[in-house]
């Protein structure tokens, strides 16, 4: 049974280890930081500029979870919406290397680190992706390794 949404997209067999996906960019505005923080991370230094100036970071910075969400968004736009993705399995070794300040523009690359067939599902493969997210000064802000499911064209024997 083919999935009409994903049938023309790249499948597991079309991916190769070492492939580098160049992400687009996202500029993180004050308004974006406030909106995310109000809903998910309502700490004074994400919600208020004066409190942010007085904090360890010395200015308004995005929630680390927002930096991760924006990194994911860039991967969806450049890669996950173009392959037969069927959802994330999780991630490991997420590191918030440097804060993302209001006005910063982030981008970077994601590299296919590994590809393997699912042990439990004959139509699925697992793609392992290494994130290297940087700001406009080429300073690393986030790294992580994400595991995502992708449909296979051929059913495993």
């Amino acid at each position, binding site marked *: 049974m083919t*999935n*009409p*949404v*994903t049938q023309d997209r790249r499948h597991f067999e079309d991916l190769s280890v070492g492939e580098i996906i160049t992400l687009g960019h996202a500029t993180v505005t004050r308004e974006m930081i406030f909106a995310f923080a109000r*809903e*998910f*991370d*309502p*700490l004074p230094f994400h919600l208020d500029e004066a409190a942010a100036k007085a904090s*360890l970071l010395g200015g308004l910075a995005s*929630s*680390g*979870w927002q930096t*991760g*969400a*924006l990194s*994911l*968004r860039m991967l*969806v*736009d450049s890669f*996950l*919406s173009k392959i037969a*993705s*069927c*959802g*994330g*399995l*999780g*991630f*490991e*070794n*997420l*590191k*918030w290397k440097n804060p993302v300040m209001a006005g910063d523009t982030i981008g970077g690359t994601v590299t296919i680190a590994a590809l393997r067939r699912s042990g439990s599902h004959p139509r699925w493969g697992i793609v392992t992706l290494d994130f290297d997210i940087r700001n406009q000064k080429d300073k690393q802000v986030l790294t*992580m390794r994400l595991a995502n499911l992708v449909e296979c064209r051929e059913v495993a024997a």
Partner: protein
Amino acid sequence: MTRWFEDIVIDEVFPLGAHTFGKEEIIRFAQLYDPQYFHTDPGLARHSHFGGLVASGWHTVSVGHRKMVDALDAEAGRLRAAGQEPGVSGPSPGVNAMEFKVPVRPGDTVTYELAVTDKRPSNSLPGWGLLFNRLTATNQRGELVYRAEIVGFSKLRDFRMPLKLKLLLALTNLPLIGPLVRRKA
């Protein structure tokens, strides 16, 4: 944690409360941060192996973070009301592991719990300790939605600064020697 490093009991479960995920908020989050068809379009999502719309894992995790912020804030309020000084937590350096188990569908209620599975004084930040937090999210059927191992910093209450560090700090505050010491450090 709103407790001081020394007072944190390993494996003590700290309930963070629950959240019911509505269809609109699932779609709104996904349109901003994870616009894959099974997170944004209920019609197309029927073709996916999920068989319908599911929340982005990053959405359920972000809500889990909100639940933790609120619960710790409430705990700090309770401690202050009881005349105690709450502990101080620092920024998180990262997440060691995050496993998504079963998807969250519109109408599902997810209950979050936190426990500290291990702790040790920090090598890099004197006066602070490292906490290894385990956050679990469970749906209304008792199925595990996700499990996370999140690292955090917590301030030591009983920290006595070593004499060497005290002297160094005192020197950095002197007008003439200070800049030299600071440059060396």
